[in-house]
């Protein structure tokens, strides 16, 4: 079922949007409860971790009080959510810094990575997918399609390790890791972004290639394309002029789904390339039992995915002509 179909059938666009919004808000609330509950049952006491070995039980208890961990869970939850409503993610009891600005900073790095990864995926998938579809009966098409199958099976971290070995350690062309903010040095920023983006985008590109291929194959069977070929257009010009816009439909849908996958992949790739993104912040915070930070990060990720869905739905509801007519 596509998003459009889910929305279609509603009454007015406004009502459809309102319904979508209620669902979105409800999902966010449920997500916040689930995230909080997970943190509460996670083994390992934050106070104990902060104090380390040799800490006395009295001291751990005192620190638990300072952190507010001795309060009832419901109070802790409401306190946290109350802060979130005013944009306050709380102050980490591990780093003793406000979590919000830190989260925003890390989110920036991750979004650059995801965006660049997506770009790489598209640059790989669109040309190769088209070639694989147009030449699907010829050896070259089969080879491309088989190569994409192999690409799908390679995890992003493995691609990352191999790329670092070849391009950073052996050839020395690119840095093996680290992050330079674009505002500081655009060249260094780009050089540092290439390998992570390629590791992330390679796998997604391989996945996407298969969708592009099947979408183009479907379009090629359409009457209007057969007419275009009958008119005398050669296969590629016919496809470019009449087919690609149609083939883009399922591809763009997949692209939305892949955004979530890319976020998850970014967590691992950030680790390998030592990028200070949301993923590495999440891993560090879990290790340090910085529960407030973990809650905040996970919630941001969940809300991000929900938001993508919501916005797509809203755009459909507002602009879909069938809905406008009713």
């Amino acid at each position: 079922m596509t998003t459009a179909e889910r929305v279609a059938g509603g009454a007015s666009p406004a009502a459809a949007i309102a319904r979508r919004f209620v669902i979105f808000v409800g999902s966010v609330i449920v997500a916040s409860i689930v995230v909080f509950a997970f943190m509460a049952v996670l083994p390992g006491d934050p106070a104990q971790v902060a104090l380390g070995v040799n800490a006395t039980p009295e001291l751990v208890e005192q620190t638990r009080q300072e952190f507010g961990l001795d309060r009832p869970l419901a109070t802790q939850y409401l306190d946290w959510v109350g802060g979130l409503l005013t944009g306050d993610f709380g102050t980490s009891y591990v780093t003793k810094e406000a979590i919000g600005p830190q989260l925003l900073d890390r989110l920036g790095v991750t979004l650059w990575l995801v965006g660049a990864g997506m770009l790489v995926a598209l640059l790989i998938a669109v040309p190769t997918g088209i070639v694989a579809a147009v030449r699907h009966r010829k050896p070259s098409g089969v080879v491309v399609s088989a190569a994409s199958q192999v690409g799908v099976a390679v995890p992003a971290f493995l691609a990352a390790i191999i790329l670092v070995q070849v391009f950073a350690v052996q050839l020395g062309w690119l840095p093996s890791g680290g992050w330079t903010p674009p505002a500081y040095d655009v060249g260094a920023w780009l050089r540092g972004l290439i390998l992570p983006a390629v590791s992330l985008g390679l796998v997604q590109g391989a996945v996407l290639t298969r969708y592009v291929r099947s979408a183009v194959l479907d379009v090629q069977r359409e009457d209007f394309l057969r007419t275009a070929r009958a008119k005398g257009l050669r296969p590629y010009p016919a496809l470019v002029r009449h087919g690609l816009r149609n083939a883009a439909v399922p591809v763009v849908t997949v692209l939305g789904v892949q955004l979530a996958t890319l976020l998850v992949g970014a967590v691992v790739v950030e680790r390998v390339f030592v990028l200070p993104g949301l993923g590495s912040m999440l891993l560090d915070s879990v290790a340090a039992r910085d529960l407030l930070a973990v809650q905040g990060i996970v919630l941001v990720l969940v809300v991000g995915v929900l938001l993508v869905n919501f916005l797509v739905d809203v755009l459909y509801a507002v602009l879909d002509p069938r809905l406008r007519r009713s």
Partner: protein
Amino acid sequence: MATRRSALSALASAAVLAAPLALAGCTAGSTAMVGTGPSTLAVGLTAEPQNFDFTTTDGAAIPQALLYNVYETLVKVDSDGEIVGGLAESWDVSNDRTVYDFQLREATFSNGEPFTASDVKFSIERVQQDWTISLKSGMDVVDRVEVVDDRHARVVLSRPSNSWLRAMTTRIGAMFDPAGVADLANDPVGTGPYDVESRRRGDSIVLTRNPEYSNPESPRPAPGYRTVVLKYYADATALNNALLSGGIDVISGVTAPDSLPQFEADNRFRVLQGTTNGEVVLAFNNRRAPLDDVRVRKALTYAIDRKALLEAAWGGRGELIGSMVPPTDPWFEDLSGEYPYDPDRARSLLREAGHESLRLDLRIANLPYAVSSAQVIASHLKKVGVTVDIEPLDFPAVWLQQVFTDADYDMSIVQHVEPQDITTFGDPDFYWGYDSDRVQRLLTEADTAPPREYIADMREVARTLSDDAAANWLFLFPNIVVAKNEVRGLQANQVSESFDLTGLRRQGTS
């Protein structure tokens, strides 16, 4: 219809993608960065400080970065484990060994305030009053601090204590300025050669020369590098790759010994190997059957071939020790031969204790040295009829809770890095569950005894622990530093809590 829908969908995706990217452009550049050049040193480390406040946050990461570099102590330990002067030019100890008179050198805090005896009083009293980490107990023995004059501080102990001066070389001896403790977690103020310039969480800390460190009033050699970037790599391979690809100049401590041959074979790099204070211990739960039986503990000690274990688990790097004492402690005695590998003897000891076969859990920290050691131990113990269930626990959080706090374990493996942590065996509530009147009495006596007896007593403690097989000391973790050839002044032994940057310089500079 299909065309319209695809356009909408593309538009939505583009909007979602583009909005945060625009946001990222504004936020990602908030930290000042420094360039690379001959006056900059980039050091790769593994454990990143969560904040800069080691008075309330435990762990090795903060003192590793800040001690001796940003904060200085009255006395420090050199690479041979000797106590030498730091902010104290000299010190005298009274005959009854309770009064320490420190003559202080001229120094200035990075906020411009002069360092005086009243800062000594402030810092020591602050440990007793405001610190929360357990190491603060090292300051319990201080009765009072007197400001004789600006350059002369007198510390009076409630009883003689041999361990106190040594504890003053650790983070609890760090000197603070009353005007510099407002935001310890983010803004450290010390007298050291470096000052924290900026940090990027998950990435690096930038230290720059403290202009107050060397000035006409307090002449001392300025540090060799103008800027030091401490870069943090949670992953050992990423750390190695950073050095190989020129991203850093030094690896402060190699945690993947398999990678060493590639550095040793490469003439761009130098490899230094020395000792640490990190005893990798196979802990026995002395309180829980069957490990409360000394025969079982001895059997488990005879049954493990530590030399083979070190070879298999850590590439043969490190030293065999035999008790809770690294070779740089003054009371070190080589006890590594006390329990030679002897599976027959292990089997007969187990039989004597009434165990034909045993099943024990081994709850380890999920760290590379512990995981690889555990596998060797399981295979060695199997040969003497002991089945081992290995259970890696998330370190530090879960390990601290389950093994350290609740003592819910039979055996565990973790590296104990604190200096002089042999004293933990004097605490019956520590997770070892080791309750020995003799060791407790010896430790108390040792601390108040005259220096020579102190050494003899501590030696006796170490020997008793070995005789009791209170734990199985698998090996001493090696300190392995890899650096580009031009970096000079690195020390092989890691005996303090600090990665001391003071003496580092580029070859060809003075």
